[in-house]
C-alpha cells in the first residue's frame, strides 16, 4: 500500500516536472507569442470554440438523456436492440466522414460543425444513460412499485438518482471528446482554435500550432475537472460509494 502510494507520488512528480519543462520550452521559444500579439483573434477563436462545444453538447444532452430514459421504459424495451444497432453503427463513422457528410447536406459553416459535433456527442451520453438505468437492481424497482410509487416517482426518485453517476460520466466523455473534435471545425469553416492548429500545420509554424493546441488541451482538462466537481454535487451521497468501487 505504502510503496504503491510512493510510486504514484513519484510518477506524478515526474509528470509535473515534464509539464513544467514543456511550458518552459514553449515560452523560451516564444511559441505563445501569438496569444498576446494577436490576442483579439485568439479570443474570437476561443469563443467560437467554446460556442461550438457548448451548443452541440447542450443539444446532445437534451436529446440523448430523454432518449435513453424513453428507451428503458417497459413499453419501449423491445425496441432497445434496434436502437443499439443504430447507435453502434453511428459510433463507427469517423469524425471526418461525419463532417464530409454534413457539408454535402448543410453546406459549410458554424451550423454544420455544430450539427456534426452534436451527432458525435449523442452516442456516449445515450449509451451511458441506458447503461446507468439498466444497471439498477431490478429488486429496487420492484420494491418501489410494490410500495405504491407511480412510474414517474420511480424514475425521478429511484432510477435517475442511482443512474446519475453513469449519465454524468457519459456527458464528461462526450464533452471532452467534443472539445478535441471541435478543432476539426476549421475544415468546414466552423472556426474555433482549429484555425490556428491547421495554420500551424500548413505553415510548419509551431507557434500557431501550439497557441491553438495547448488552449484546446487546457479547455478539455478544465471541462473534465468541472464535470467531476458537478458529480460530487449531483450524485447522491448513498450511491456514491457503489459508483466509485
Amino acid at each position, binding site marked *: 500500500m505504502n510503496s504503491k502510494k510512493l510510486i504514484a507520488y513519484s510518477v506524478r512528480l515526474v509528470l509535473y516536472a515534464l509539464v513544467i519543462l514543456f511550458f518552459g520550452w514553449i515560452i523560451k521559444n516564444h511559441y505563445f507569442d501569438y496569444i498576446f500579439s494577436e490576442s483579439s483573434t485568439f479570443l474570437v477563436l476561443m469563443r467560437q470554440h467554446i460556442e461550438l462545444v457548448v451548443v452541440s453538447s447542450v443539444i446532445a444532452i437534451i436529446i440523448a438523456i430523454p432518449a435513453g430514459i424513453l428507451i428503458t421504459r417497459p413499453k419501449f424495451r423491445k425496441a432497445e436492440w434496434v436502437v443499439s444497432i443504430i447507435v453502434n453503427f453511428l459510433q463507427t463513422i469517423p469524425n471526418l466522414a461525419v463532417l464530409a457528410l454534413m457539408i454535402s447536406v448543410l453546406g459549410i459553416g458554424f451550423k454544420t460543425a455544430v450539427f456534426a459535433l452534436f451527432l458525435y456527442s449523442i452516442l456516449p451520453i445515450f449509451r451511458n444513460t441506458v447503461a446507468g438505468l439498466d444497471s439498477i*437492481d431490478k*429488486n429496487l424497482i420492484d*420494491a418501489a*412499485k*410494490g*410500495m405504491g410509487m407511480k412510474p414517474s416517482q420511480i424514475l425521478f426518485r*429511484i432510477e435517475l*438518482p*442511482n443512474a446519475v453517476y453513469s449519465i454524468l460520466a457519459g456527458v464528461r466523455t462526450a464533452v471532452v471528446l467534443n472539445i478535441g473534435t471541435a478543432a476539426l471545425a476549421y475544415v468546414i469553416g466552423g472556426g474555433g482554435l482549429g484555425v490556428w492548429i491547421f495554420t500551424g500545420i500548413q505553415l510548419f509554424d509551431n507557434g500557431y500550432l501550439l497557441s491553438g493546441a495547448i488552449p484546446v488541451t487546457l479547455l478539455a482538462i478544465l471541462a473534465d475537472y468541472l464535470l467531476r466537481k458537478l458529480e460530487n454535487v449531483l450524485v447522491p451521497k*448513498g450511491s456514491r460509494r457503489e459508483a466509485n468501487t
Partner: protein
Amino acid sequence: MIAFNHVTKSFSEDNIAVKDVNLTVEKGHIVVLLGPSGCGKTTLLRMVNRLESISNGEIMINNKNSMELDAIELRRNIGYVIQSNGLFPNMTIEDNVMIVPDLLGWSKQKKRERFTYLMKLIGLDAQDYRKRYPHELSGGQQQRIGVIRALAADPPVMLMDEPFGALDPIIREKIQDEFLQIQREVKKTILFVSHDIDEAIKMADKIVLMRDGEIMQYDTPSEMLAHPKNEYVSKFFGKDRALKSLSLHTVKNLQDIIGLAPIDATIRDTKTIHVHQDLRTTLSMLMNQEADQVVVTNDQDENIGSITIDHVQKYLHFEIKGELSVSQEG
C-alpha cells in the same frame, strides 16, 4: 383479511404457476406460504398487491375485490418486504422508512415521530441512524429497516417474501423473535413466504404447503405436523416432524398434561429452564447432558419441579398419536 377465490395464474399455456387456489387469511394472522422452489409462492403473494395480474378468480382484501381498487392506492395500503431488502441506496434510512408516509403526504412532524417509534421497535437509535445510508448498515440491520419500512404507514396487510432468507441463522432467529414480538403489538394480517420449515413452524399461525401451484394442506403448524393430509406433506416435513413439532410446545404444556418430577436436592449439577421455553430447546438441553438435572422455574423464578427425557418422550408419544390437543399459545 385476505381471501383467495379460485385464483389461477398462468404465464403461458403450459406455464401455470398457481392453480385454482382457495385460501382465507384471517385478520391478525401470519400465514406462511411454504413449499419447494418454483411452487408458486412468490407468484401467489405478488398477485395480492397486483405486481402480477390474476389470470382467473379473485382476491378479496377486507371484503373488497382487489381488481376494483386502484393499484397504486392498494399497494400503499399493503406493506411489502422482499428478500433483498430493497432499500434505496440514494436515500437516507429515514427517507427509506418514510417512503409510503411521504407518498401519502404526511407532515414532517408526523413522519419524524413515526420514524422514532418504528426504530424503537427494532431497538435502533433513531437519532443515530436517521441520516445514515443503507450501505452503512449490516445485513441484519438493513433487513430490519426493510421490515419497519413496510410497517411505516401502518397498513393492515403485509406481504413478506422470504424476508429473512438472506440472513445467517443466528441473526435470522433473532430477527424472527423480534418480528413476532412486534406482531404481537401491531397484529397485522400477514402473508409470509418461506422455504424454511423451521421458520414456517415458528412464525405461522397457519401454514399453506404448496406444490406445483396447488395447495397440499392449509393448517396450523401443529395440526400439519401431527396430521399430515397426504404423503407429500408428511414427506415434506420429514421423519423428524414430531421433533420439529416440539418447538411448538412449552414446558408449561407438558406440565399441564403429565406433570413434572420432583426436584432431587442431592444433585448439585443442575441447570434451570423457564416454564415458557419450548420443548425443543429443553430436549436439546437434556440430550446434550449439559447438567445432571434440569430444574423448571416459573415466572416468579421459583423452582417448580424437574424435567427428564422420559417426560418429553411421553409427551411426544401422545402428540404423535394425536391423543393430545394442546393449544399453541405459550
